[in-house]
């Protein structure tokens, strides 16, 4: 497995009080995204575990787009990737942010 780490500036801070959110499933073409609260409200830490080696540049682009567009600040994100396409990754990250901003169940 290839493990990738990103720790980047995230200008839009995540809202809500939920401690954790989970979206997706590890299946072919899919991924699971575990969202938790991190330390710095203006940064986002993302760890990715993937069996598809050598796609760092692509993950870089997806992550950069994500923190630019979504409320990713103050979040710590862990991903188990089943070989998902970039647009699916973007979608799950956005779903994760939406879910962690939801009121407690």
């Amino acid at each position: 497995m290839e493990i990738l780490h990103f720790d980047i500036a995230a200008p839009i801070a995540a809202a809500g009080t939920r401690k954790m959110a989970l979206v997706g499933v590890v299946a072919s073409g899919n991924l699971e995204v575990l969202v938790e609260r991190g330390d710095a409200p203006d940064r986002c830490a993302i760890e990715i575990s993937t069996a598809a080696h050598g796609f760092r540049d692509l993950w870089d682009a997806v992550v950069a787009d994500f923190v630019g567009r979504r409320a990713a600040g103050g979040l710590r994100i862990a991903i188990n990737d089943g070989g998902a396409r970039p647009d699916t990754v973007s979608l799950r990250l956005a779903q994760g942010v939406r879910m962690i901003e939801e009121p407690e169940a």
Partner: protein
Amino acid sequence: MSNFRQSWYEAGARERIAALVDTGSFAEFVGPEQRETSPHLGIFDLPAQFDDGIVVGSATLDGAPVLIAAQEGRFMGGAFGEVHGAKLTGLLHAAKALGRDVVIAFDTGGVRLQEANAGEIAIAEIMRAVAEARVAGVRVIGMIGGRAGCYGGGGLIAGCCSTLIVSEQGRISVTGPEVIETNMGVEEFDSRDRALVWRTMGGKHRTLIGGADVFVEDDAAAFRGAARAALARPAKLDLDTLAAEQARLERRIARFGDAADATDIWRALGIDDPKAIPDMPATAFATLAAQYRESADDAR
């Protein structure tokens, strides 16, 4: 197509739990944030899932306290691995200790090949744990209606449950269709003949032949209602139950052992138009089944 009907078949493990339990009542045990992942999959360069493909915890169902488990059929086909199996074993031990009923949403192809030994051991431990919980008076209610069905070791565990709830899409068996074809030849069983697969292992047939107890629509609300009703059924497991089950199985094979196809069994049960069964809508089928099915009520 009503968009209000939540398909059980389509739903993932967490969605099924959310649909079954009282809102906000679910507390997860060994949740994904614990990161108790498979210690084996990395060796095969296969991705792990944080909950190892099974969600377990406690909840209430119409106020009744239950322990609940749901397998994620889309992760490795819902198959049992070391951690996955241990979570279910632990849940059943807790059920016995607490005297709490258990609801299990099966969605599994059996044991993971990559974790074969640990998986098979887990199946045995789970079956023992089911039996011990039931002897202590705990109900173990199984629900089957997902994409992976309930195969292999899952089928064995299902056979130990006190009540089985099944939908049309659900399948229960030990050996899977492809393995039967490989071992017995395509003339004996053509695994690509999906109508045949469902006639042989599917929810309607299992209901009619006494392999499942309650037939429901592919609707999370229907599964919830059936689970609720099952929690009110008696669930003793003792020597009398086992003797009754033995007698039921002996009677069944004597009665249907020569049947070449499920339609022959349905005809023998007294159903006039057995060929109409597969396409029959759920409500009509449930009514018909209630009248004609082989029951296993005293043998569960």
